């Protein structure tokens, strides 16, 4: 394998960027842990509606969950393509991940819009406040991920992304998969196990 990019190894023989990124993901666990805890603590304690049972749309959210899972698959396929130097498929999969993320954000926009239309806002009740902060923070992470994927895709189009830069794509992939696993937790705890 050719290494066009500079290798950044620590004294442990591990890439320092990857190590730093895993530490960042660890800190993100604490951020989302606190937001999910807040949601669960206030669940069922709203003194006025709308309640989760009245408003959550499980079929629509199931489709957006499927979309995010598929984008995770496309992300690993993009990484595998970059590692073997197949830049044609790397570009296709990277664009696929970005489009998958945009579709997820579209579903979230539809969901938020319909909730606001039905009277659920940040100020409406405890459910609205905790729900919008939790899922909105996740959505913001997806938006950052989409911008990251589009940046990688543009760099690939410019010929500035190759097997020597696989670690760059791998770190972007770590971020994207983390956003996916956070959604796996939110989908179960917020949508399927609502009171």
């Amino acid at each position: 394998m050719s290494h066009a990019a500079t290798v950044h190894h620590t004294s442990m023989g591990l890439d320092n960027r990857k190590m730093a990124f895993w530490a960042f993901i660890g800190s993100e666990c604490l951020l989302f842990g606190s937001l999910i805890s807040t949601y669960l603590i206030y669940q069922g304690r709203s003194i006025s509606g709308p309640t989760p049972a009245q408003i959550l749309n499980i079929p629509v959210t199931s489709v957006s969950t499927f979309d995010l899972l598929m984008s995770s698959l496309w992300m690993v396929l993009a990484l595998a393509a970059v590692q073997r130097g197949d830049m044609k498929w790397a570009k296709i999969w990277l664009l696929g991940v970005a489009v998958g993320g945009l579709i997820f954000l579209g579903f979230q926009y539809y969901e938020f819009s319909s909730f606001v239309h039905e009277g659920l806002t940040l100020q409406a009740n405890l459910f609205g406040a905790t729900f919008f902060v939790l899922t909105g923070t996740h959505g913001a992470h997806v938006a950052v991920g989409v911008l990251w994927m589009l940046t990688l895709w543009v760099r690939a189009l410019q010929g500035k992304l190759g097997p020597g830069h696989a670690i760059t794509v791998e770190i972007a992939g770590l971020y994207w998969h983390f956003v996916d696993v956070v959604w796996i937790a939110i989908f179960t705890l917020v949508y399927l196990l609502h009171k």
Partner: protein
Amino acid sequence: MEDTTTPAQAHPTAATYLRIAAILVIITVVEVGVFYVPAFRPLMVPILLTLSAVKFVLVVMFYMHLKMDSPFFTFLFGGPFLLAGAVMIALLFLFGVFALGR
């Protein structure tokens, strides 16, 4: 068991990634099924939490490569993850979410 890693990167093959994706989709379909079938209502919480945990582990182990990568990355992720889990459980007890008869 077949070797699903490539020697150069020690990452799974595309076939393994596809199998994992298929399992993730199947588990998601089962989760939604459990949500809608009244017979599962008494066991819904443990079933859904278990299925969600399986999906979480599959993504972290295979898509994020923790199964193949340095154990130090597992430590960097697992330490804060366990801390977050412990804080969550403590907060839920503290605020009476697990209290009986609520």
